[in-house]
């Protein structure tokens, strides 16, 4: 069994820790060794946030280094680009089209990089692009963007949908379960519905 290294990158407050916990629960149910590393504290406040999840027979380091990620789940375009070097050649990137402008851009000290999606497609073999915010709003709340993204990734990991849904249930507040389940499904079905067109 090869290790699977998953990085979740985004902006503080986008819910990457919840996403990583769900992956962890599924992997635990399936008897994998797991190490996850997350960010608490200062960089939570709208900063760039990275969460690593590593699954395998035996995992040592909880962090993922440059060139080591099998999958990067990017909740925001600029963050996808920022962490691209962490993806190993041949790895898969799932990117949310959402843009969150960092303060240097907001105050006019810097420009938000243009054509990020095109750049990703040019430089990577396997990119899935999704407007997860729209899907989340359809599912009932902008807060479930993270679970939409999780659903996309789940569709190509070797675990059952039922296990995923159980793990989502364990990790979200009960009042939000329906929205989260809907969000997960819209992500989970996304690639098969869209077919090859988004896999450039």
């Amino acid at each position, binding site marked *: 069994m090869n290790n699977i290294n998953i990085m979740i990158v985004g902006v503080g407050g986008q819910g990457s820790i919840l996403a990583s916990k769900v992956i962890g629960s599924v992997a*635990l149910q399936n008897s994998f060794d797991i190490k996850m590393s997350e*960010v*608490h504290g200062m960089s939570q406040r709208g900063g760039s946030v990275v969460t690593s999840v590593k699954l395998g027979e035996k995992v040592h380091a909880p962090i993922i280094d440059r060139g080591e990620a099998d999958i990067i789940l990017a909740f925001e375009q*600029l963050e996808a680009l920022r962490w*691209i070097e962490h993806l190993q050649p041949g790895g898969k990137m799932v990117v949310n089209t959402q843009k969150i402008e960092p*303060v240097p851009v907001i105050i006019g000290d810097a420009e938000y990089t243009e054509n990020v999606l095109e750049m990703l497609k040019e430089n990577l073999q396997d990119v899935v692009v999704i407007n997860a915010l729209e899907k989340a709003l359809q599912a009932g709340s902008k807060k479930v963007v993270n679970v939409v993204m999780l659903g996309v990734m789940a569709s190509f990991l070797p675990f059952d949908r039922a296990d995923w849904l159980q793990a989502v249930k364990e990790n979200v507040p009960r009042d939000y379960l329906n929205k989260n389940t809907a969000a997960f499904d819209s992500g989970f079905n996304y690639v098969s519905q869209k077919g090859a067109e988004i896999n450039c």
Partner: protein
Amino acid sequence: MKQLMLGNEAVARGAYEAGVTVASAYPGTPSTEVTEYIAEYDEIYSEWAPNEKVALEMAVGSAVAGARTICTMKHVGLNVAADPLFTSSYTGINGGLVIVVADDPGLHSSQNEQDSRHYARAAKIPMLSPVDSAECRSMVKEGFRISEEFDTPVLVRLSTRISHSRSVVETGERKKVRVKEYEKDFQKYVMMPAMGRKRHVVVEERLDELRGFSSSTELNYIDWQNRNTGVVSSGIAYQYAREAFPEASFLKLGLVFPFPEALIKELAREVKKLYVVEELEPFFENQIKALGLEVIGKDRLPVTGELSPGLIRENMNQDEREIIESPQDDIPARPPVMCPGCPHRGAFYVLDQLDLTVTGDIGCYTLGALPPAEAMDTCLCMGGSVSMAHGVEQAAGPDLADKTIGVIGDSTFIHSGITGLIDIVYNQGTSTVMILDNSITGMTGHQENPATGYTIKGEPTSSVDLKKLAEAVGIKRVSVVDPFELEELRQIVSREVKADEASVIIAQRPCALLEEMEYSGIMKVDFDRCTYCRRCMEIGCPAIVDRGDRITINRALCVGCALCTEMCSFDALKKVGDSGE
């Protein structure tokens, strides 16, 4: 049962299983969750202390009285608690005492990168260092055993990647430990010179025994593999080194102080090349070299920052990774920012407008040092803002003093700002101190503190009245203001800094992330009224976006705090609807 646990959660679990009945702490990233998880166990009395010194003194009292006690803090917290730490090494304990300290290599959320292992050595206290959550649990339990066997406090060193990583833990039952009998023993517990002299001898004898223990305990062991290469490591660096040297023999140090001399000699004898992989200081390396052994260490690895498997491979072994080169090298940075709705935003807008010299402090409000406000001149340590403002005045005289203000959060003020304020009053200074009271300890993730009116368990308690407190120490000029009333705040601040008496301004508005603070609706720009004057941009709200030809509101970020309306002279910002919930 097998569970995925955060390192900090596993520390709490270990304390629970070890039969701990008392826990005290002051929050600090990355250590905070230890005590938050402990607070979930009804069997354990737990508390947030006003600062780390108080937390440790309380814990020593509890241990001397016979209870197994745990005390937790971040690395710089141990500086604050250093005074009781050093002398508790002399008095020893009665019930076990474990002090958990979390370092922050890479400065994810800290003001420095100090290496706590030096404290173990300086205070002559044994220190353990877990490598994952399972060891967080087991080593805390072992820590209590060692503490009681050797009559010493025990330090457990965590680091950000241990505290904030999740891995699999097999939990066990709680051990029933009876609180030991307390016996008065002034030779042991009253550290006057005559007794201290005798206790110092005891400390040295204990250290000798611990040195022997270090080579015999199962906490330290050699994992023999290929004998060409031997690696000495501990903590998170051990995990990185295992990935970087998959075939080497390892000396894994669970007890990092005192150092196991017999084991290192054994490893050095057998392997061709000896490496030491440690984050931050060459702590083991210097001890290995002092034994006359040859070892490769900090000549190849940095003393600054975090290590990683790749970094170790690159500098010590073969690195076969292929890297996708980033197609863009000037990606705009994403520094942390004050949240939308943050009450500090109003305060720093005004401080910037008034162009004051601001001695700052540590908390969410330290972000006021960054653009757009850039309204902070110093940030040294908790409480430093108040005393430094006083220092500025004494050095530079009234001219600069009239343009200087110390700015500090509520939790930080109680931690150690109050003593600085007493210094100002007592020594007839005229400084102005602004307390940013957002009703919570924000920076570390919303902990209650003595000014919030709730305990760590969420029980209502009395709360420090900051206004009365300031008055009680002798401040005659105390103003209370809402930091979102920009004009009023501006007037008060300009008046108070010039006053020839010490003054305190309490800027009161709860943190936007507190549940009771749910603002309703979000803002919208009325394009018919907006003249694109861009004044609203000056408050640096991440939800206000400059589109180059117009201003828009980011619906996903705006919380509807409406501070921006204070900036708009054209009534172009309006509150509408909800936030897409």
